């Protein structure tokens, strides 16, 4: 019953609301993360344990390799610390470029496409708080992987040079502005792009972002000029070589300031100016970003909300594709067609192809200019480098699979209701995802290895070993990408580009590196035996060859099949 009572509005009106503090704005993110961590999902404990074991193994591996290298550098008179500094500079410049790319893409999602923005923008929240909250979100989402990688790296430097606990504090003090700076720059860049381009043209924006950042990476890479350091005989004298080592790679790069702060502290003389430059530049970038945000954010956000209507006409290409896929049957043909359409119409997916193309070109370019002719270059080195090339090519493949195959199952999250309620077997879905991902990957893998082997002029035996190994590795990497993607899905993610940077993505990368490493180790002995026989006219042991290559093949087959089987079992019981 409704009682008839006179309404009594509060005459005083609304009280002035205090601005929601920054922490309050971040509360939903924190609570979501906590709720996710507390979920009592079956098998969660086992997964976390596996994650911890693989993580510790990976950390130990990075630490050991770097630590041994640094010990070796320490033993070299005069130029030892310089080489260690250059190596750190190289690592940090790579980190900085990765962070910049990652931040530009993450900022597009966190500042313009995230679902909580409607609520935040419509609420009486101060612009600065929105900026800082979203900047912090962007820093965390795009930098955690680099931060995790940095832990064993700094530990190796600290222990090798007896930095002590004070070094740990300094490393943290250096790394915080080092992470914030690319985030502020990346967010500002995204803000400008969203404002410059016509409404909702994310396709254009993202492709520009990818191309610009890729070009940036290439530029940074060339700035460092790493190939000069690998060839001391190219310098007129040792003095010139040392002077090149002493010259800052690029004194205006924040990675250089971070490197100087760290190396100077480890060698006993603190470079406070470098640390000061890092902090002040980061603060200036955040301030500049905030000012830009105040001026441009609302117009950019408004543009990002406008409709994305776009027509698609089915052309002759579709008809040809349909005819080519006809032998697969109706279901598999439709699944494959859907995969291809969704991929090529999703900007966040295909735009990464541009980046990939640039990276492959740089890779092949660097192989072409490897100094493999001249003094001290033995028959072994010429043949071992193509073998090690497999590791790099495998790593490139794993990165590509992480971008394109790993997110496959996650991207089905919101449409699983349709697939689950139809008379389709999960096997067919995985089949389509596997082959749509693996076929181009295989073509690329064979292309990379074929071209680089040709440039390196390897023997027929090494060519055969590389081609067969990379084929098997491609299947293994694709199988693991699909399997790990299904075992660690990100069904609720708003941005496909973020899926590979999830914990599952990290696990996949570590598992891939492990398999690639294991295959190379298993094949190393028979290859060494063959090369020795070729070089010295001895007899290669056929048992060793059979055992090595069979074990490598079996490992690749297992790495292909087992993850897909696990994915199949997982998807058959998934309830969404």
């Amino acid at each position, binding site marked *: 019953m*409704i009682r008839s009572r006179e309404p009594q509005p509060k005459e005083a009106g609304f009280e002035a609301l205090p601005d929601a503090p920054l922490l309050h704005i971040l509360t939903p993110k924190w609570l979501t993360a906590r709720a996710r961590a507390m979920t009592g999902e079956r098998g969660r404990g086992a997964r976390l344990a596996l994650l911890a074991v693989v993580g510790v193994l990976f950390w130990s591996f990075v630490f050991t390799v770097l630590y041994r290298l640094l010990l070796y550098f320490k033993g070299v008179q005069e130029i030892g610390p310089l080489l260690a500094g250059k190596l750190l500079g190289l690592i940090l410049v790579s980190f900085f470029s990765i962070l910049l790319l990652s931040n530009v893409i993450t900022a597009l999602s966190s500042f313009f496409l995230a679902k909580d923005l409607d609520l935040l923008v419509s609420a009486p929240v101060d612009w600065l708080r929105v900026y800082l909250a979203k900047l912090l979100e962007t820093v965390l989402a795009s930098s955690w992987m680099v931060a995790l990688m940095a832990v064993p790296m700094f530990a190796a430097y600290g222990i090798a040079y007896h930095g002590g606990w004070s070094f740990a504090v300094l490393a943290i003090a250096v790394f915080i502005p080092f992470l914030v700076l690319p985030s502020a720059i990346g967010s500002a860049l995204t803000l400008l792009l969203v404002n410059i381009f016509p409404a909702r043209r994310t396709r254009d924006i993202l492709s520009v972002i990818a191309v610009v950042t890729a070009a940036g990476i290439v530029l940074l890479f060339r700035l460092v000029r790493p190939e000069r350091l690998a060839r001391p005989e190219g310098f007129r004298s040792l003095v010139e070589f040392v002077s090149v080592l002493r010259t800052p790679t690029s004194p205006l790069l924040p990675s250089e300031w971070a490197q100087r702060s760290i190396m100077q502290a480890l060698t006993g003389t603190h470079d406070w100016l470098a640390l000061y430059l890092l902090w002040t530049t980061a603060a200036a970038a955040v301030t500049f970003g905030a000012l830009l945000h105040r001026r441009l954010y609302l117009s950019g956000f408004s543009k990002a909300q406008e409709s994305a209507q776009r027509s*698609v006409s089915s052309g002759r290409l579709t008809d040809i594709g349909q005819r080519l896929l006809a032998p697969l049957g109706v*279901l598999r043909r439709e699944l494959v067609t859907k995969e291809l359409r969704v991929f090529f*119409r999703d900007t966040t997916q295909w735009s990464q192809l541009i980046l990939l193309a640039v990276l492959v070109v740089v890779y092949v370019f660097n192989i072409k200019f490897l100094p493999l002719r001249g003094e001290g270059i033995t028959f072994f080195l010429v043949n071992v480098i193509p073998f090690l090339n497999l590791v790099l090519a495998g790593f490139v493949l794993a990165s590509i699979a992480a971008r394109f195959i790993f997110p496959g199952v996650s991207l089905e999250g919101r*449409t699983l209701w349709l697939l689950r309620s139809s*008379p389709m077997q999960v096997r067919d879905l995985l089949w389509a995802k596997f082959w749509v991902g693996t076929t181009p990957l295989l073509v690329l893998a064979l292309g990379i290895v074929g071209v680089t082997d040709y440039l390196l002029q390897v023997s027929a035996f090494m060519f055969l070993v590389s081609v067969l190994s990379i084929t098997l590795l491609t299947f293994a990497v694709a199988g693991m990408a699909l399997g790990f993607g299904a075992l660690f899905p990100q069904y609720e993610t708003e941005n496909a580009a973020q899926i590979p940077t999830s914990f599952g993505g990290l696990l996949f990368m570590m598992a891939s590196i492990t398999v690639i490493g294991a295959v190379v180790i298993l094949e190393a002995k028979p290859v060494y035996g063959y090369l020795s026989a070729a070089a010295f006219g001895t007899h290669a042991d056929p048992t060793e060859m059979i055992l090595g290559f069979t074990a490598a093949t079996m490992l690749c087959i297992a790495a292909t099949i087992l993850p897909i089987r696990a994915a199949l079992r997982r998807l058959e019981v998934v309830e969404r």
Partner: protein
Amino acid sequence: MIELSGLTKKYGNFTAVDRIDLKVPRGELFGFLGPNGAGKTTTLRMIAGILKPTAGSVRIAGIDLAADPIAAKAQLGFIPDRPFIYEKLTGTEFLRFVAGLFGQAGPDVEHRARELMALFDLEEWRDELVESYSHGMRQKLIISSAFVHRPAVIVVDEPHVGLDPKSIKILRDLFKEYTRRGHTIMMSTHTLEAAESLCDRIAIIHAGRIAACGTMDELQAGAAEGRGLEEIFLRLTGQRAARDLMDVLDA
């Protein structure tokens, strides 16, 4: 056509659906009513094969869903309450894809897809990406997708959400005609007027259990007080018709 025996779904200690027994014969339009959180969607998603029952069984057209899911699902069309579909496909491509999941392709599918889109005023949007569709248009596309392969059974969760009055009228006529031709539809809804005028039989679910089931006449006969579906619904589900609103607003 739909047979539920002892159907139960538990999430930890919480029982969402508790030992439901139900039979929906061929050619019937069956209504499934209940307050929020009563277990309607969970039941429908179990029938659609998306959720696995904790206990009990689902049979569709005589086929046990757990024993032969592919054959059982081949008889089914499902319309969920949340219209999530592939954003990067066009309307036509989506309908073609759904038909393909049921092993159907060719001129018949193309013809049906065209007719269904025309029926729901989506003709002009057929070659537009789904990402440009409004909520209601997406809902209409999903409804079309459930009909495109001509299933024997359609399970539909809250079909009226987001639809304009014209589309609601079309949908009701479509449901009526489809069941008249011998197909079966099981529909959950909050629109009591729709349930009352459309459904051959109605079940009211409350706290995971069926509180009442029958034709409108049977439900009215069983009700001690009140003649309309709303009164029967509120009485069975223990809802208070009106709270003291002043108290709420003054709080």
